[in-house]
């Protein structure tokens, strides 16, 4: 199963997401706590895919996405957004994010999106 990096500034969200991903035998190889940390962890860990919150301190999720793609244009990043961030998601997708899910999410939806992304 996939090696996944979670980037999110909320520990509640990270823990929750981690539990969901691990339930499907994915390996959460690291957790980034902001956009800056996200890039560092990505470069150090080279995960199969990244889940990326949008609203974060230091560098936000879209900036972090662009940073990551700058280093690896093939990186598979899935955005995690709150409801009503349609414009942000569109920006992210146009910047190269492969997929997205909306908070609050059901575990099934997350795993479905991850599977879709990985099989692309």
């Amino acid at each position, binding site marked *: 199963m996939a090696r996944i990096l979670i980037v999110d*500034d*909320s520990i*509640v*969200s990270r823990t*929750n997401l981690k539990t969901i991903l691990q339930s499907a035998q994915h390996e959460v190889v690291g957790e980034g706590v902001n956009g800056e940390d996200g890039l560092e962890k990505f470069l150090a860990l080279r995960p199969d895919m990244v889940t990326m919150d949008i*609203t*974060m*301190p230091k560098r936000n999720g879209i900036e972090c996405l662009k940073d990551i793609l700058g280093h690896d244009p093939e990186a598979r990043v899935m955005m995690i957004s*709150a*409801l*009503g961030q*349609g*414009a942000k*998601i*569109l920006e992210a*997708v*146009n910047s190269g994010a*492969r*997929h*997205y899910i909306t*908070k*609050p999410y059901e575990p099934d939806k997350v795993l479905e999106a991850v599977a*879709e*992304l990985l099989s*692309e």
Partner: protein
Amino acid sequence: METTALKDLDLDLDQEAYAAEDQSIGNLVEQTQTFTASEPGQAVHAFFTGHPSAEGVVILAKQTPVGLIMRNDFYQKIGSLYGRDLFLSRPIKLIMNPQALVVDVSVDIATIGLIAMNRPHDQLYDLVVITENETYAGVVSVKRFMIELSKNREVEITLLKRQKEILNEANETEIRNRKQIEEKSLELREKNESIKNLMDNAGQGFLSFGQDLAVSGEHSLECVHMFRVPMEGRNFLELMAKHVSPEVTQAMARVFASVFAAGKSLREKVYLSLLPPELHIYGKTVSVAYKIIRHGGHKKMMLILTDVTEQRKLEARMTEERNNVKMVAKALTKQSDLNLALEEFERFAPAEALAMVREIAEPKAALAEIFRLVHTYKGDFAQLGLHNTAAKLHTLEDGLAALAARPIRPDLEELLGVIGAWDGRDIVQEDVTILTDILGKGFFEKDERFQISAEMLLAVEAKAGDLPDGPERQGILSALRRLRLCSLAGLVAEYQDYLQALAARLGKSVAPLGVSGDDVFVEKETVQKFVKSLVHVIRNMIDHGIETPEERLESGKGEEGRIACQIARVDGCVSLSMADDGKGIDVGKVLQLAVAKGLVTPQQAQDMPRDEVYGLLFADSFSTKDAVSVLSGRGVGLSAVKAEVERLGGSIRVSSQPGFGTTFTFLLPLGA
């Protein structure tokens, strides 16, 4: 050709009549009285009384129609029991039909006719309300509409009569022309049938457009019903602009552009999911499904529109219920997370937020930081199931976003003002109330509970013991002692994790420890050592009793072994039994080992009763496992349990059935 021949017969009069049929509804529009929704039923009653021929009246908000009252409906409602009292003095909003048929004057007669005739039975003859540029323009009476249609029919009949005369005169063409008439009526019949088909399929709107976003001609009638204007060739986004915010229109424009440019199907799917799944069109909730159709090398977007207004109202109520149930379930499983989040948030709004703004001092940076934190809280609360709180935080977030997007940025004073108006307690109140209604007040009274160490309690007890003897002292002492009591079942249940870990290490599969029976409260100090010694029983059961999953399956048992604890009060004593469903105690093996260890002689072993054999298990340095394992068989095992039970003055009974399991019962004189 026959058709040409028919055309040749047309008269000027006929041409006019046919032309009229194609015209818009404009010349059929009549005026009727209008009211506002807040006027009393009395006003409508007065109007209807004064104008006996008026069929109905229109309700306007500013210049936009919001409802219709038909004379018949009005008096039917007034005539009902209490209707007079209910409706005459109260606003007509209560009595009007808010879903009246409203169309723009530019829609052609035939389309309006079809939509009008497709209405529910009881609304078939209701006035059709006509607007022009969103403004009320008048009504069309269905009666008048029918007369107009039949006039056309008369013209048609005159035409046919005239044709017949000519046919009669022109003998040589008679037969041919009669055939023509037959064909013409067949054509009409077919036309009627296809119209009927359309009507039968109404209820869902279909429309499609290509990259130019111009709505194609093959859209269904329901679309016109929903949008109230002719659609063909119109730019879809221009049509939408009236019903959604400029931001949404813009976002849709960008998504459509991206969809038409996208290559991969996941990408298309992602883009489509960004389009609004529901639209609000003239007060109706319309659900939209977006599909991409490939036509040769071209892509087309198809939209399927369904009016789900009533459904959504019902669902909203059910969703509310379901969300509340979810919230309660989450609250129960994540109580500490929830309490933490609530405490943190109440500190944040507004005290900490204000402090933060003052500290950052630069308004733009402060606003960004506060926005981020509100957003994070929103996500956390949503994840914890507090849906109303999340919705309220979303509104706060919107307010902050608007503030940040304003041309004139707020200064520090204004920002402090906005944040100072927040009340964290008030924001979470609705959800907290729902939770306390269901879970009881105690759920959030965490801050009124506190932990006391056993030491402190004993110290207080010692002080109370120094009081002069009397009923008062006895009362205080027993009250203090009760504070120290804890549930025996609770103490045993603490073995849960141990049991699972041990089973895993031994490659056995064991279900969670089941503890059941009476609620027995005991002094922890008294039973602690005994309860601790039960670890040996559990260890023995998992190591020696429960078989491996393969063995269990072979002997027809469930893969998962079971260990259960049953607690009961028996004549002033407490009976605690631990039972497993494993392979039972192998008497022969126990005896063999006992002989080998010199605990009994071979002669004694010969006819030793089962009960006595079981007693050997509790002897010092006894193990039935061939090899001493890391976990059991160190010789202390069950003898430690025996020692504890004896210390309490209790007794042990063992029963075992080969192949079905073993039960250890401990009878303890705990006068609980």
